[in-house]
């Protein structure tokens, strides 16, 4: 697991003087005794000045802005504490003071946990202004609103003393959204015109879908930065078609066959195939997303876990059934009077209401289990070189949070929404742990990403593809 003493000696030996000085400035508390001794040994060998340990005491005053050559380290080590209870529950051995973001295990195994410093009250103000301007501009401002929202959430996400950044171009996002709108409208209405128009649209969707998917990934990642470096997405078009096309075809199949056969018995077979293949499809897209992501010239890796995905989906299905029973009771009560009252003529409306009830129950009851378990699986199988990830997210705390969010959002006619979004982001972000053999701050790499056209960015939004990293 952790690296040996000789490997460490070699690493320090290969490092430049500047890098060694930088490492030393992190302070001895960031290292095991052995690692610290090896570092000092290497520095002495090169005749570098012994660096005094950086101050890490919580009580130390922040350096005055006008103090001569004040190094910001003490100030930087300190991530403002959010002071809000809904944070990720930590196991006791990780219960470190907020200041020390890293933990050392046997030989220089560093664990950094992410922090989120967004506040509901602050985001509420951004949300209100964003919405007002969006409505006044008949939706055109939504692209700018999206950028401001993304910046708020990224810039309040801290890892190892630094924040993430977002650089999406609103005009590109607006273009992407218009394209997505056209495609969505075409897909929704084409079969109403004629089967030929419908098939033409489905074919077009299959042809451009995988391309849009990689553009969306690329845009989202290339516009996210950390420590001055952009993330990237490196998939080749051929590979994307091989991966995404089967998923897209399976997804569209039930709808298309139902429309073409006028729903005479054929519907169930493609739908069954879709249901059985769904965990496989979800895993395939997740793996594709992770494996092609790059940061600092290194590619992320992902160990396949199709079996685990199936296990989660099968177990979670029990919860869906529970939600279904509850929804059934509510709907039965609801339909008792709707069916019998003579002038209700809109079945469309009934379906919509029942769908909402059932959907909301599934979201609250089964959603947290799926989200927590799948995130655990995905993070624990993702790596970036020697860096490993995991998440402490748990289904039960997430369930409590989602229940509270939904209840308060409904009770306040939606006004609680910004607080709900912040609470959810805080829980998810603060559960993430990043493990590495050397401190994250010691990793340096080269950059080679360019933000692409955003054709796919908005498209992914409108089709609801989850592109969260």
């Amino acid at each position, binding site marked *: 697991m952790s690296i040996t003493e000789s490997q460490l000696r070699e690493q320090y030996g290969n490092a430049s003087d500047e890098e060694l000085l*930088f490492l030393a*400035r992190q302070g001895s508390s960031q290292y095991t005794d052995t690692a610290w001794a090896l570092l000092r040994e290497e520095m002495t060998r090169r005749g570098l000045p012994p660096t005094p340990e950086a101050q890490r005491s919580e009580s130390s005053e*922040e350096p005055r*802005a*006008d103090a001569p*050559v*004040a*190094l*910001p*380290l003490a*100030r930087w080590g300190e991530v403002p504490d959010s002071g809000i209870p809904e944070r990720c529950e930590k196991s006791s051995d990780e219960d470190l003071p907020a200041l020390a973001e890293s933990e050392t295990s046997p030989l220089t195994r560093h664990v950094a946990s992410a922090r989120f*410093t967004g506040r509901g009250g*602050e985001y509420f103000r951004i949300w*209100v*202004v*964003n*919405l*007002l301007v969006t*409505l006044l501009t008949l939706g055109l401002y939504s692209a700018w609103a999206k950028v*401001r929202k993304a910046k*708020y959430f990224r*810039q*309040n996400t801290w890892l190892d003393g*630094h*924040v993430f950044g977002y650089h999406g171009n609103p005009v590109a996002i607006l273009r992407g959204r218009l394209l997505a709108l056209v495609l969505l409208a075409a897909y929704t209405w084409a079969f*109403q*015109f004629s089967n030929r128009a419908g098939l033409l649209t489905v074919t077009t969707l299959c042809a451009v879908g995988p391309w849009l998917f990689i553009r969306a990934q690329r845009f989202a990642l290339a516009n996210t*930065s*950390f*420590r*001055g*470096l952009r993330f990237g997405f490196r998939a080749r078009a051929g590979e994307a078609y091989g991966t995404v096309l089967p998923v897209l075809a399976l997804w569209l199949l039930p709808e298309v066959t139902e429309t073409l056969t*006028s729903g005479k018995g054929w519907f169930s077979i493609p739908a069954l195939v879709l249901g059985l293949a769904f965990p496989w499809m979800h895993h395939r897209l997740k793996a594709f997303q992770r494996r092609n992501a790059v940061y*600092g010239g290194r590619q992320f890796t992902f160990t396949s876990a199709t079996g685990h995905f199936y296990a989660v989906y099968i177990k979670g299905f029990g919860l869906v059934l529970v939600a279904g029973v509850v929804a059934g009771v509510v709907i039965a009560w609801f339909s008792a*009077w709707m*069916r*019998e*009252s*003579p*002038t*209700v*003529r*809109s*079945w*469309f*409306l009934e379906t*919509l*209401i029942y769908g*909402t009830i059932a959907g*909301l129950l599934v*979201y609250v009851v089964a959603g947290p289990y799926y989200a927590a378990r799948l995130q655990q699986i995905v993070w624990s199988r993702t790596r970036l070189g020697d860096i490993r990830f995991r998440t402490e997210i748990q289904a039960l705390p997430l369930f409590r949070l989602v229940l509270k969010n939904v209840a308060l959002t*409904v009770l306040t006619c*939606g006004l609680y*929404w910004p607080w*709900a979004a912040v609470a959810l982001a805080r829980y998810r972000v603060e559960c993430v742990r990043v493990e590495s053999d050397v401190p994250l*701050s010691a990793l*340096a*790499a*080269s*950059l080679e990403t360019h933000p692409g056209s955003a054709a796919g960015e908005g498209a992914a939004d409108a089709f609801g593809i989850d592109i969260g990293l």
Partner: protein
Amino acid sequence: MSTPTFPAFRFDGRHAEALPVVLRIENAYVVVETAEGIELERERLDRAVVSEPLDHAPRLLSLPSGATLEVPDADRGFRRELERAGGRLSLAVRLQGWWLAVVIALAALVALLAAAYFKGLPAAARWVAFALPPRLEARMGDQLLAVLDKHYVRPSRLDPVRRRRISERFSRAAAAVAPGVAYRLEFRTVGENGVNALALPGGIIILLDGLVEFAGDEDGVLGVLGHELGHVVHKHSAREILQSVGVGVLASLLWGDFSGMAASVPVALGVLRYSRDSEREADEFAVAFLRAQGLSARPLYEFFIKVRALESRLGVADIPDFLSTHPSTEERLERLRREIR
């Protein structure tokens, strides 16, 4: 007084290493120096992209050189310095930094949403519904009917002679009141003789056996069919579908990303309101329809008296008005009673 300096981190854009630096603003230039006093950057402030100020996040400065500066600004000293150097904040940022403006913005937002919901969307849906190609609307109706046939309704078991009589009376009346309106009467049955009639897009009117038997009197059935023809004439089905799409778009604007599910609650509640308005319009049409046949609104009135009896027998009269897709029977009775006179 010397220029204030600010501790920061500099990233060169090619390496992940964070270099502790000292930053100051000098004659509208950003000057970045290492701890040892070596100058690394000197760039005009207006050529740097500066992030919005946030309460608990550092400011990010992107320089044309590709370098990024992360400036912690817990005491807002850097913010003040930027303002002194002429850095302008966008209108949105200034608005949201001021609570009174936020409250005013919230009030404006609620007013705007209300206007969109009560006036804008119905008008837009009405315009689109009447501009929709008839072929498209007919196809929507056929598809809905196919879904109903598959999942909900079964073929009618009503006596064919009775069916033909109802059809003929209805087609005569429809030709007189609304000539040129395309409609199609379909007989179906549901569950244990469900009492219902409904209008789908494209002029499809479904009449359930249960309603014919429940009404007893054929003039009452004609009144209900007149009501459904009112829905057809006003294109209520298509308008409702379009309106619910509009409400869905609004809801996803407001609560998007949170969850598609959560966003659909207001959609379900939102479209209910439109239906009640439609029912009122259709009732008005039904009265005119019956009058044109030399009938008064009485058959429809009597039909609703029976409905009220059914409702109280089933104990469903207590459903709050806002959850109901039709105006409460009492309200309808009141309006029809006025029409009889």
